[in-house]
């Protein structure tokens, strides 16, 4: 893999994870919802888009929209039981929901059209890339990068607009406590559910982009580990700050990918290195929570 190709790959991953990080930031950073199941939206988006494009033979754009709608609806539904509850309940309910989504795609191979060695634990391959025929093999990654950046930009604009609107002020007050927004006549439960739906649909968008870039998805790409990496991005970058969320994605991915080359210099096996990388991510979360609660880019305090 040439250096340019690698950098384009890295930039695409940063874009996709940037979207995931922005989405989690809306839920955790701004609203205080401990969503420990972010990977569920990622997984759903990837599978729904694949099904729409591969099974129903519709164009990519329908796959993207389908992924966003289904992931958004899923976010709305899973917040029903916990909408009135404290953050501990959110954490475990979303964590479990993400596992159920993964178990579903692991067990139900018919959803992706069936056929030998397709679906279930085999995963599914041959996912078409949008407008692939218009580009040569060497220029296509640049085109895909452009798609990802457009999506990232759109996500940033939308989430920024939401958090600056009155809606944003309400969810920030929900983060602090329930009573104040309730006294002001705001339906706290509804707001939480809406935030989960909006965040979820962007998570679905990221999943769709991931699936069509790699051309292959399987349930074990969507382990809870992914959720924790996205959490590290939000915490390191700076919660409740959208630029911070993207910066976090860039930093964590740079760290994640640069440590890959360590195996050429250190006598450590690849598997051990992968574990050590996650140890570092875990320690990073703990250290950030202890000494750097605001993250790298602090939340802008606005006086209304």
């Amino acid at each position, binding site marked *: 893999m040439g250096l340019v190709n690698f950098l384009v790959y890295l930039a695409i991953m940063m874009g996709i994870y940037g979207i995931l990080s922005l989405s989690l930031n809306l839920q955790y950073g701004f609203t205080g919802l401990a969503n420990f199941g972010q990977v569920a939206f990622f997984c759903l988006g990837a599978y729904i888009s694949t099904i729409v494009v591969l099974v129903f033979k519709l164009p990519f754009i329908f796959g993207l929209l389908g992924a966003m709608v289904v992931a958004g609806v899923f976010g709305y539904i899973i917040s029903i039981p916990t909408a009135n509850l404290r953050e*501990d309940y959110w954490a475990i*309910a979303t964590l*479990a929901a993400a596992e159920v989504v993964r178990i579903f795609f692991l067990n139900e191979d018919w959803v992706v059209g069936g056929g030998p060695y397709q679906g279930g634990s085999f995963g599914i391959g041959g996912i078409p890339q949008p407008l692939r025929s218009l580009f040569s093999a060497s220029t296509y990654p640049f085109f895909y990068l452009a798609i990802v950046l457009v999506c990232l930009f759109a996500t940033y604009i939308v989430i920024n607009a939401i958090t600056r609107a009155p809606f944003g002020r309400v969810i920030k007050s929900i983060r602090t406590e329930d009573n104040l927004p309730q006294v002001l006549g705001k339906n706290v439960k509804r707001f939480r559910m809406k935030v989960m739906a909006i965040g979820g649909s962007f998570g679905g968008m990221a999943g769709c982009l991931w699936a069509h870039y790699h051309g292959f998805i399987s349930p074990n790409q969507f382990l809870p580990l992914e959720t924790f990496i996205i959490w590290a991005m939000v915490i390191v970058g700076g919660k409740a700050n959208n630029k911070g969320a993207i910066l976090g994605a860039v930093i964590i991915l740079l760290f994640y990918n640069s440590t890959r080359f360590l195996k050429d210099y250190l006598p450590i096996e690849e598997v051990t290195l992968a574990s*050590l990388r996650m140890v570092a991510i875990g320690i990073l*979360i*703990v250290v950030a*929570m*202890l000494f750097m609660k605001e993250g790298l880019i602090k939340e802008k305090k606005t006086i209304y």
Partner: protein
Amino acid sequence: MTFTQIVINSIVRASELTLLSLGLTMVYDILKFANFAHTEFAVVGVYLALFLNVALGLPIIPAAIMASVATGAFSIIIDRVIFKKMRNASGIIIMVTSLGLAIALRNTIRAIWGADAQNYLVALQKPIITEYFRTTPLQIWIILVGLAAMFALHLLLHYTKLGKAMRASSDNPELAQASGIATEKIITWVWFIAVTFASLGGILIGIETYILPYMGFAIIVPVFCATIMGGIGNPYGAMIGALVLGFAENFGLYINFGKIINLGGILNFSKDILIPTGYKPAISFIILILVLLIRPSGILGKKKEG
């Protein structure tokens, strides 16, 4: 599988879950945060016991006890280094920190011992076979250890000064402190007891099945589910929650929902509907959701505002 057999399997599972959820609920009760590293502490104990048992050649019982006590002590160190600095932080901050700790612990174990399944050196056991069920002496041991832990905790909470101080601190921390109860000392004991129990539970699961770095994550949803079902912060609730969940997990796969829909022949619905085995991990999730919808404060929980 016979009815008696499913009952036995359920009780064994409940005993293992009890050991784990007791600790989770105790830590929640006194520190007011959901400890996502709880089951990972248990796995630390599991691998310490593996080291003592396999590398140093100790028999499994002393290895299990030594490893569990050492893990309990380890959790006190972790509390001093990390959680003590966060006593006044909000629950969500401490919870996210515990998540980071969980990731670090799980992967440290994986880096040291590898990702493959391993086993303790335990002599093959002659199963006890009767007409109705088949069990092993180990399963009877698991049930006994679970019962002993519950009984010990009950005695501790009600008949010792430490236990009374624990209950006082949980009921009203300020009042307890004002009455001269050293809260920090209580917290240290709670960590030690909670994690020692969890480690024992993990080791029992490890002996019965096999040992994996991911076993802590595999059990986190059932353990949380049992804890919440019983009423988070209530040790007796955790015991009942574990019992209900143990039965639900085992009976869930054998209930023919087709017959239930049939309503004893009123509807002519003859298809068999069983939960596929692949969905066994989802059972505790479904129960969790039902509990959250119907009674989030749990069976024995105090009614708290949400």
